[in-house]
């Protein structure tokens, strides 16, 4: 079913990700919001509707009612402001819902945000909070952690498709390389395959460099119908499709633990709505919460057959400058994973790429069409967004 109106992005901005001791949720949301509004050249008063992605303000900092919080502290009262949650896909879902609001014709200028403050709690507590994204009764209760769940996927994937551990290390090395060129990245250090392979084991076979960090961060995008967006920018970025999909909450109920069916469904639907094909995509931001997830994503999005992503990775095709650039900002691994914000942070990166505004060395030359892929939990939610100049 086609959009009622074409939706476009006027601007999208993100904070740096990291351990921001001096910033709470309000500060992070403010920082990203002001950046986005300034870049858009709009006034806050122009925003008519706000959707915010946030996984767990309650369990990280004791703060719920995030929709009201962001509207209040960005000076946006009394517009409607809602928080949506889909674990690590909260940002992507927020974006897709913001697009719905614009496409419906009921709202013109819509702000979409994502914010997460994860570092106030001890790492064990953060792990516990993130466990809320799995099936609490049948996974967390039995002692599973998120690295554990993705490790189960990785072990089975490596067993079924004969993939070596070096392939995962190559993903981490590439993402750290891109991150080193990104001033907003959580981690700016480059690593080698050797360093990755001897880093401490987290959940066999996933080691420290296979796992995205706990980060604080926020991102905001300003949406409008295309005709209105053109008034504010010469380079409106068109949302060709933004499609969420769901799959089983728990890994144990999945059809195939090496495939995130929600990604497959959302991707197929997105390409259908966008009237586009896989080969039209110039740059991709995928949800590499763990290195294995990047491999699965490339396959589940339909860019290659199941089991064949390792070839692309090992041949260096996924570097900027390669045939199929993936995670030009460093991905979740290096640029950071403030869970509720990540989906919107990915959009901000693609907007930069499509406008040719990314830093040298990590800008995809002549990028015209980009795809963002955001996942919640071990695959219970996926959102696929296709953006185009």
């Amino acid at each position, binding site marked *: 079913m086609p959009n009622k109106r074409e939706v476009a992005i006027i601007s999208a901005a993100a904070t740096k990700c990291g351990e921001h001791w001096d910033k709470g949720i309000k500060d992070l949301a403010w920082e990203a919001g002001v950046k986005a509004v300034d870049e858009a050249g709009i006034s806050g008063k122009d925003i008519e509707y706000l959707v915010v992605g946030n996984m767990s303000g309650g369990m990280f900092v004791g703060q719920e009612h995030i929709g009201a919080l962001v509207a209040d502290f960005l000076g946006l009262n009394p517009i409607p402001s809602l928080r949506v949650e889909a674990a690590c896909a909260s940002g992507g879902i927020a974006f897709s819902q913001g697009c719905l609001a614009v496409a419906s014709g009921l709202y013109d200028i819509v702000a979409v945000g994502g914010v997460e403050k994860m570092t106030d709690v001890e790492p064990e507590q953060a792990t*516990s909070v993130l466990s809320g994204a799995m099936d609490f009764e*049948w996974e967390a209760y*039995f*002692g599973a952690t998120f690295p*554990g769940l993705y490790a189960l996927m990785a072990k089975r994937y490596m067993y079924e498709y004969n993939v070596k551990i070096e392939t995962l290390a190559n993903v981490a090395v590439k993402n750290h390389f891109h991150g080193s060129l990104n001033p907003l990245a959580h981690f700016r250090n480059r690593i080698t395959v050797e360093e990755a392979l001897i880093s401490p084991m987290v959940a066999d*076979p996933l080691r420290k460099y296979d796992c995205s960090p706990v980060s604080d961060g926020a991102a905001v995008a300003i949406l409008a119908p295309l005709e209105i967006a053109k008034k504010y920018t010469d380079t409106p970025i068109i949302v060709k499709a933004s499609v969420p999909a769901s799959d089983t909450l*728990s890994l*144990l109920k999945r059809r195939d633990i090496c495939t995130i069916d929600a990604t497959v469904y959302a991707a197929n639907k997105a390409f259908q709505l966008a009237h586009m094909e896989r080969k039209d995509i110039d740059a991709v931001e995928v949800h590499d919460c763990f290195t294995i997830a990047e491999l699965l994503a490339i396959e589940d999005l339909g860019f290659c057959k199941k089991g064949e992503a390792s070839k692309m990775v090992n041949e260096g095709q996924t570097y900027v400058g390669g045939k199929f650039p993936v995670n030009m900002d460093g991905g979740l691994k290096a640029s950071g994973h403030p869970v509720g914000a990540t989906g919107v942070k990915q959009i901000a990166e693609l907007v930069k790429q499509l406008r040719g505004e990314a830093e040298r060395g990590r800008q995809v030359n002549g990028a015209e069409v980009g795809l963002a892929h955001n996942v919640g939990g071990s695959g219970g939610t996926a959102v696929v967004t296709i953006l185009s100049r």
Partner: protein
Amino acid sequence: MSTTAAHWRRMKDRYRLLGSKCETCGTTFFPATKVCSKCRRKGKTVPIEFSGKGRIFSYTIQHAAPRMFEQHTPSIIALVELDEGPKVLSQIVDCEHNELRIGMEVEACFRKLFEQDRGGIISYGFKFRPLDNSWTKYYEAKKE
């Protein structure tokens, strides 16, 4: 982590590996469902107790422990594919790390999952250990 009521709610399923079976199409489910996802309204589900036998579908050794499981680190968790079809997620016990194999036969056993705290409720449930039928040889020797 969990209230007492939440501990109790799925206790029987955790103690005895209970699920459900659709009498219309024969599919078994874990956790138990009231509606068969294949047959929907045409299905008739009844409770079943799984045999506890299965194979390791995938496994991992977790070095970063979740809360309340710190003492048990490193822990082995696995997806076990039960003989009847569904998969469950659980810990593997009585097994050295280097003995783990995808496809290894396992059987359910009854263990402590965690204690809320020193004075709190103890939660019990199923874990899996390598299937070992070697005990039958003690009786064969006697027969001869």
